[in-house]
């Protein structure tokens, strides 16, 4: 069996690139010491934490992809560093360790702990908590659309479309105003409400007119990335209830593999912007003409940003939820840019006895999920690596990700 790794830092060196849609710069795999860093020096004697990584393997035979597998290369079981602590200490540790989507992690932790132990650990009101999560969601969407995507395509990154959102963090009205300006004058080239009203012909015209760099990227991906068949979507947390929470919590306890490979009603389910706005006419128009592809996931993010610029943040109840699922047990669900984040906790006598997290990446990179459905069979091998990189960007893992071709 022979492995071919896609060149980090761009696809130009990859043999998969020729004739394919222009695609991503995949970061190198996690190595000792620092997240995915090419080692140029020896680490010191202290133990170093290597974050979890994802490896996408495309199995190739006779010039075609015959299978796609997703491996998680590192796990960070929470039990070893959370169990036995007080709720307050657990919140402190999670707040320190999880620096990406920090607001969402803290909100989920606080909501789960409060619901499980009936104790107040919150540092802010429920409305403030939901707003901080929402602001973070907008920023992460912008990072994906205006930094990672052009980076993948070899275009100039657009930090000017992201930085104002970082600077405006904290004030909903201010951040909404910044977002409206950035979209109207930068990404969309037209007012967000008018853009949201485009029909299929209008969307195509917006792409082909290519008045903005964002529109040019959508034009480049129109019909260019591999479509997936329709696969299940995880319902937005606003539609969850206690029965669903109890099922998820029970499965988490019973199945040690569930946190990494979660399922909804027994099936892998995609989460994120496309699950939240899948019925929007603009997205339906894209899917009807281009397919249920990587570009559809990018468009879903842009639709959410345009909706936010138009209408402001959603209700707090649509962002952060928590349910008691037993005596001293709770499940919290939080909407993030990448999808639903779950925290499940058991508390007894003011001590954490069990703590588990299901990250959106677990749902979206399920070994039998949408990625495998899109790319797992009968794809021409020459372009498969670039297609996998496009899909990886669109699904946006919260960890470093590599793509390799494995020749049978």
């Amino acid at each position, binding site marked *: 069996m022979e492995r071919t790794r896609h060149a980090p*830092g761009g696809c130009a060196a990859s043999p998969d690139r020729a004739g394919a849609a222009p695609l991503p710069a995949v*970061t190198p795999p996690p190595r*000792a*010491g*620092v*997240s*995915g*860093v*090419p*080692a*140029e*020096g*020896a*680490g*010191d004697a*202290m*133990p*170093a*934490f290597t*974050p*979890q990584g994802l490896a996408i393997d495309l199995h190739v035979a006779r010039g075609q992809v015959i299978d796609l597998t997703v491996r998680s290369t590192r796990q*960070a*079981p929470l039990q*070893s*560093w959370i169990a*036995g602590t007080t709720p307050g*200490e657990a*919140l*402190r*540790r999670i*707040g*320190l*360790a*999880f*620096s*990406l*989507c920090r607001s969402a*992690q*803290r909100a989920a932790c606080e909501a789960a702990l409060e619901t499980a132990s009936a104790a107040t650990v919150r*540092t802010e009101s429920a409305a403030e908590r939901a707003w901080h999560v929402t602001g973070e969601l907008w920023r992460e969407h912008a*990072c994906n659309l205006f*930094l990672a995507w052009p*980076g993948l395509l070899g275009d100039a*990154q657009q*930090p000017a479309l*992201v*930085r*104002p959102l*970082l*600077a405006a*963090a*904290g004030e909903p009205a201010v951040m909404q105003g910044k977002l409206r300006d950035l979209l109207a004058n930068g990404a969309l080239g037209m007012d967000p409400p008018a853009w949201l009203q485009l029909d299929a012909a209008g969307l195509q015209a917006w792409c082909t007119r290519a008045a903005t760099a964002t529109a040019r990227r959508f034009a480049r991906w129109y019909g260019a990335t591999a479509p997936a068949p329709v696969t299940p979507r995880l319902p937005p947390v606003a539609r969850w209830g206690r029965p669903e929470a109890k099922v998820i919590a029970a499965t988490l306890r019973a199945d040690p593999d569930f946190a990494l490979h979660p399922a909804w009603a027994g099936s892998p389910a995609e989460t994120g912007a496309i699950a939240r706005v899948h019925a929007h006419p603009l997205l339906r128009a894209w899917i009807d003409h281009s397919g249920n592809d990587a570009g559809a996931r990018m468009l879903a993010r842009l639709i959410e940003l345009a909706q936010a610029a138009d209408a402001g943040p959603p209700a707090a109840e649509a962002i952060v939820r928590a349910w008691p699922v037993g005596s001293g047990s709770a499940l919290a669900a939080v909407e993030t840019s990448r999808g639903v984040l779950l925290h499940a906790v058991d508390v007894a006598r003011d001590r954490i006895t069990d703590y588990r*997290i299901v*990250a959106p*990446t677990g749902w979206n990179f399920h070994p039998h999920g949408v990625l495998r459905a899109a790319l797992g069979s009968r794809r021409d091998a020459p372009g498969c690596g670039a297609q996998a990189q496009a899909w990886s960007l669109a699904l946006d893992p*919260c*960890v*470093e990700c590599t793509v390799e071709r494995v020749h049978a």
Partner: protein
Amino acid sequence: MCLGVPMRVVESAGWSAVCEARGVRRKVNLALVDEQPAGTWVLVVQGTAREILSTEDAQRIERALEGVAVALQGERDLSPYFEDLIARPPRNREA
């Protein structure tokens, strides 16, 4: 999952920098935080500096990640590794 690593800028040119953490160097994108002088601490997520850190915050996060690492090796007393960073507001990353 969802973890960033504090790294110190060794040298930078525009939005590209060589950063170091624990003796390991990597190329880091500074597009979000702009060019930074050598010695600046940044929080790196998937090759991109997401925010500028004070030395104190960088060391706290480093110690927390060390705490996770030693916990995975069986250490039970983690109190020296976790200090309170909860109350600190998001740092302004605008250049």
